[in-house]
């Protein structure tokens, strides 16, 4: 009787192992070193979310002859301690070019009726979202702590030059985002 019971237990253990193996994995699998390498046979899904304004309307001022506006970029998610999310504007009509000291970006909007270009400067100081409670090696003014469930926002500003001619100027703003290696103080 004891032997039978032992055998049954063994078979139960085997069956449980079999059942576990047959359930499909739909989330990421991480290596033990935390390199975020997804070792396959699985479906790769998202690990963080970036929230960006659907559209940015700039307000034109007759006093200054220029238009300006602000936007907010939010990021949420769970990161490993050696990861950070980087979000920055990269295109507006064409590629955004770095300004003189690299603290702002140049782009252009295009007039719908005239096809004329209108120069635009984009400035977003915070571009890096890092694991909460860690201290970066690089300048802390460009980063902010990330949260798992709530968006943490960073603000950007946009200012146009003086338009040569009245028109409705538009452009599609593109933000690049991705996970990068995070160099922190131990």
């Amino acid at each position, binding site marked *: *009787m004891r*032997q*039978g019971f032992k055998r*049954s237990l063994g*078979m*139960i253990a085997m*069956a449980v192992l*079999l*059942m576990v193996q*047959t*359930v*499909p994995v739909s989330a*990421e699998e991480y290596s033990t070193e935390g390199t*975020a*390498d*997804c070792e*396959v*046979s*699985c*479906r*790769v*899904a*998202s*690990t*963080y*979310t*970036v*929230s*960006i*304004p*659907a*559209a*940015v*309307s*700039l*307000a*034109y001022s007759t006093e200054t002859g220029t*238009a300006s506006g602000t936007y907010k970029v939010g990021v949420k998610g769970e990161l490993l301690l050696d990861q950070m*999310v980087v979000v920055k504007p*990269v*295109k507006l009509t064409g590629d955004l070019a770095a300004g003189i000291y690299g603290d702002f970006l140049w782009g252009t*909007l295009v007039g719908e009726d005239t096809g004329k270009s*209108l120069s635009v400067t984009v400035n977003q100081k915070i571009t890096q979202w890092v694991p909460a409670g860690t201290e970066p090696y690089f300048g802390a003014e460009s980063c902010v702590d990330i949260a798992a469930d709530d968006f943490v926002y960073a603000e950007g500003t*946009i200012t*146009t030059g003086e*338009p040569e001619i*009245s*028109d*409705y*100027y*538009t*452009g*599609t*703003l*593109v*933000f*690049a*985002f*991705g*996970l990068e290696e995070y160099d922190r103080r131990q």
Partner: protein
Amino acid sequence: MKQKQNRRKAGKGKGWAVAVAVVLALFAGLAVFVAVLHGQKGDSLKQSGSASQTGALVQTGGMSVDVRAEEIQETDGSNPLEGRNICFSGIENTSVKSGGVVRLENRAENLDFLMKFKIFNAETGEIVFETELIPSGQSVDWIPGEVLEPGKYHLDFLQQPFFVDSEGIYVALTEGCNRVVLTVKE
């Protein structure tokens, strides 16, 4: 006599073991069935080839400034995009086997915004994969191994959101570009 009793006991043990094994086999079968069903369901739209353009009138957008005469500006009414954000899913640097899947999703938070994915080889600029417009809350499963040879690729996952206005015009919104290093294994 004792031998007979032992045999009887052994026989009883065997009977138990067979019964337990049968029950467990049934459970295992059920688990496999559920797993297969789970793999088939979900909101994913299966797409393995490239997709065409929207085929509708598309208006550039994302950023705009109106510096026309006031009479013209007054024809616009309220902006349906005012204060609205778009959520982009970010994925990590990933390795997939030839049959591995990368899920391209339009997050449920995006409500009436449609999302199109264009995946570029960042080094050559070549389009690797393109989806149709994906409604919010749905996704497309992309199998990189179908279009990429085994190797390491720097890919740009360009996410292009659209809003369909009251006149049926597809308004392009702010775009997000997720930079990912993807390794396709054999």
